[in-house]
């Protein structure tokens, strides 16, 4: 797809199609945000509150006009939507996303005084609004073009690579980059801790969830009680649960030498994992149970009548048919655990939450972002990945 395709062409004629009001209004919102809100903020050092700059100051005349043209182009294309126009819309959205760090480079060139090495650039409200709305546009376009989740995800990964490259090589003045450079080792370690906590918790919950769901199918009386307990666990605020675990675990660690040697303690990884698993069990068990129960009785009856043994019926019929709903449970559980792990930083379990709480403590919002943005990205990636997997495993491949 070339740039020419993305620009409105003079050959367009009214073809009796209704405007896509969603995309038209979204493009108007972005235009308004670009001209009304601050595009970037600039602060002479880390502590001082930054001053905001509008589109003209931040991007210069050429940049502001280019951005406005591209945004208006979205609205114009959406006014007479056709398959071709939706593809052009997709190209425009991706181009806008790719150009966003370039805009920051322009601001950095225009606004940062080379005499002030401490000066840092922050993303203004307009940037966040435009980014968020562009993502919404992407969802709308994906639905209209009837694409699977795979292609938009791949395109977004490409965009993310471009951002990463820009941040690594040309955006030293960006506050986020400065925060990262100041603690890159720590950042990598935190991401590792975060992933490990989530990974272990989700793996254990998946196994426990499967076992529990199967037990509940066998012993129906267990079902009510188990769901009541899991529901109750879900209602305890996460901080309270950490607090509740503190004393008993500390006592266990002190009095049972074996557990102490294993690394069990009142704070750190152990209570974090226990809490994460406790919260993960409900969505996991609920989805697994429903998934296994919802398989059509006709199909199972046929499987039995054809002479399949109980094991064959479970592994070849019940489980594969339950898989999409079951994976949905894994997806919900994982996304939830990624978010919850942030809170676990409070009890010394590490992870990306560390930056959030440190940043809050030091009133350094950019440091909070350094923790929050990767958590958001992780959640989005996992969500898209597992969603795509569940889609691919639908019975018959096409439904």
């Amino acid at each position, binding site marked *: 797809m070339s740039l020419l395709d993305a620009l409105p062409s003079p050959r367009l004629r009214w073809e009796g199609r209704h405007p896509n009001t969603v995309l038209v209004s979204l493009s108007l919102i972005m235009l308004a945000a670009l001209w009304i809100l601050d595009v970037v903020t600039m602060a002479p050092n880390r502590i001082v509150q930054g001053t905001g700059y509008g589109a003209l100051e931040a991007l210069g005349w050429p940049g502001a006009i280019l951005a406005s043209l591209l945004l208006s182009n979205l609205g114009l294309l959406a006014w007479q939507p056709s398959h071709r126009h939706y593809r052009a819309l997709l190209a425009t959205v991706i181009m806008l996303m790719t150009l966003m760090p370039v805009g920051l480079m322009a601001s950095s060139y225009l606004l940062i005084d080379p005499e002030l090495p401490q000066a840092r650039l922050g993303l203004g409200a307009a940037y966040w609004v435009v980014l968020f709305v562009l993502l919404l546009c992407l969802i709308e376009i994906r639905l209209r073009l009837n694409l699977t989740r795979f292609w938009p995800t791949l395109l977004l990964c490409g965009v993310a690579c471009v951002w990463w490259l820009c941040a690594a090589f040309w955006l030293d003045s960006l506050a986020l980059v400065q925060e990262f450079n100041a603690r890159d080792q720590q950042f990598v370690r935190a991401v590792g801790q975060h992933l490990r906590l989530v990974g272990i918790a989700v793996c254990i919950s998946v196994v426990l969830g499967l076992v529990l769901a199967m037990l509940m199918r066998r012993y129906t009386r267990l079902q009510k009680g188990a769901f009541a307990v899991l529901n109750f666990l879900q209602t305890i605020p996460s901080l309270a649960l950490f607090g509740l675990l503190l004393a008993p675990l500390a006592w266990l660690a002190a009095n049972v030498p074996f557990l102490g040697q294993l690394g069990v303690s009142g704070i750190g990884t152990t209570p974090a994992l226990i809490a994460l698993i406790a919260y993960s069990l409900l969505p996991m068990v609920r989805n697994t149970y429903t998934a296994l129960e919802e398989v059509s009785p006709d*199909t199972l009856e*046929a499987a*039995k*009548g*054809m*002479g399949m043994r109980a094991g064959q019926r479970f592994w070849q019929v019940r489980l594969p*048919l339950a898989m999409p709903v079951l994976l949905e449970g894994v997806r919900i559980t994982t996304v939830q655990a990624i978010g919850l792990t942030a809170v676990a930083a409070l009890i010394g379990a590490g992870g990306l939450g560390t930056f959030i709480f440190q940043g809050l403590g030091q009133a350094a919002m950019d440091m909070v972002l350094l923790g929050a943005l990767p958590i958001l990205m992780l959640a989005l990636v996992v969500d898209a990945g597992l969603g795509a997997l569940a889609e691919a495993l639908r*019975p*018959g491949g096409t439904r």
Partner: protein
Amino acid sequence: MIELSHVSKRFDEETAVDDISLRVPKGKFCALVGTSGCGKSTTLRMINRLIEHSEGEIILDGQAIEVYDPVKLRRRIGYVIQHTGLFPHWNVARNIGLVPRLLKWSATEVQARVEELMDLLGLPVGEFAHKYPHQLSGGQAQRVGVARALAADPDILLMDEPFGALDPITREKLQDELARLQARLHKTVVFVTHDMDEALKLADHLVVMREGRIVQQGSPLALLQQPADPFVESMLGGLERGLKQAALTRVKDHMTSMGPTLPAQSRIPADFSLRQALSMMLRDHSDRLAVVDQHDVPIGELSLRRIIKEAQLDKGNARE
């Protein structure tokens, strides 16, 4: 051969099947007919041990069914159910090959058998083998269901209202095909239905059930001629009974050699039923029809008087 003697099934206090005795000789087609809840499905499912009977004896090829391992027993009995029960996550070829694979046939044997069966049931392999059940029409799906039941070439076929969920035209087409298949394969079939016309059309042996008991059994013609009680009579269609009986008789069995004058224009193929002949007479205001062979060459004639006389004769025969 399948033989049920004094078989009952009780669920707690309730008796679903009450002391039924029934014999289906090898290669015969037996239809169980009755209103819903009369125990006909339960009877069928006791034969492949999806439900265990409480009393009496079910004998399959000379041995009581308790002797067989239920799983192995089911693998040698074809089973077709109303909503097909096809596995939605498997394509047509894989669905049909299920039982042969359970019996550990080699992959090439399975594939050859699947293609043979798809051919037999009029499902072009190239077009259907890789389709999934949700991409099929109701009729196509039930063809696959029948093919799956026949896959390991079982001697016995159990069919539980297989065409109940289909539209009338598709249902009739599949009934005709089943009749054609049965004429060729000679399976021992037990067929459950609530549709008396379907049963009359397909069965050699008809069993009418009510509230867990057998009310009457016998050949379709025998039941039509002498229903045991008002219930069987109403099941057989009350006043429509005469027409149903006519539907079971072929024109060629009642035609006479051509008379001196050839009836004007109405012609009926020899393998049509007397019911169709009667309908044609009503339509064409004629009491005589020319009977033709498949090349439309007249080979005899059929008169209204003759049809009525034959019916009286049949009735006389049945009484004896």
